[in-house]
């Protein structure tokens, strides 16, 4: 299960609406503790796939380095990432799986239809390596 603060949940859905018809992307920060994994904030990132932003996203690693550093200063870890699927289901694609490498992290996808966020789903990347990795749907619990 992925617990996510309501403010972060609404933020990522709004971000998808703002970038429509292009895919949005960003980082989920939070803590892992006795409560499990709790996302407390979402950090928007630029999509470097300016060649095909309607169906592709890529986050500049330099942004991740900065976000990771700033997160550490606030005792926050990277728990996952989010992106949107314009006019497409909130389900991982073969591209999403091929490009997923952060094992144990959540990949949150929001479907945005005609500019409105519809469904937000989360998938946990599991496996031992590139040969057996898989994305498993996990429930989202919104924490107020």
């Amino acid at each position, binding site marked *: 299960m992925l617990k996510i603060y309501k403010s972060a949940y609404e933020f990522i859905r709004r971000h998808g609406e703002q970038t429509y018809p292009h*895919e949005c*992307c960003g*980082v989920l920060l939070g803590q892992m503790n006795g409560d499990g994994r709790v996302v407390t904030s979402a950090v928007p990132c630029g999509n470097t*796939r300016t060649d*095909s932003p309607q*169906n*592709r*996203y*890529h*986050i500049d*690693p*330099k942004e*991740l*380095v*900065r976000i*990771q*550093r700033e997160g*550490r200063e606030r005792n926050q*870890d*990277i*728990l996952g*990432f989010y*992106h949107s*699927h*314009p006019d*497409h289901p909130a389900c*991982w*694609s073969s*591209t*999403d799986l091929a*490009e*997923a*490498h*952060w*094992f*144990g*992290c959540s*990949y949150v996808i929001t479907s945005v239809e005609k500019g409105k966020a519809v469904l937000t789903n989360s998938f946990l*990347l599991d496996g031992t*390596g*590139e040969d057996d990795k898989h994305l498993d749907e996990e429930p989202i619990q919104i924490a107020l």
Partner: protein
Amino acid sequence: MKILIPTPLRQYSNKQSAVELKAATVGEALSGLVTQHPDLRRQLYTEEGKLRAFVNVYLNDEDVRYLQKEATRVRDSDTIAIVPSIAGGRA
């Protein structure tokens, strides 16, 4: 110098989020890291011993691909960040 371990790799580094070690180059530092934590080798390197394409290595704020790659010299005060790439898309 310090190597920052990203969340997905901490299961292979005894849950440590950072590892301190001595090295003269980025290559030596990474080699020292996988010597200390052998389970990390498969995650970072191919069977041919090359860094996996999706593994980005930053020395402070610079991608080592644009420096001298693994031959980039490091100082005691430097920080190396290992950052797996993030990408995807609906199609």
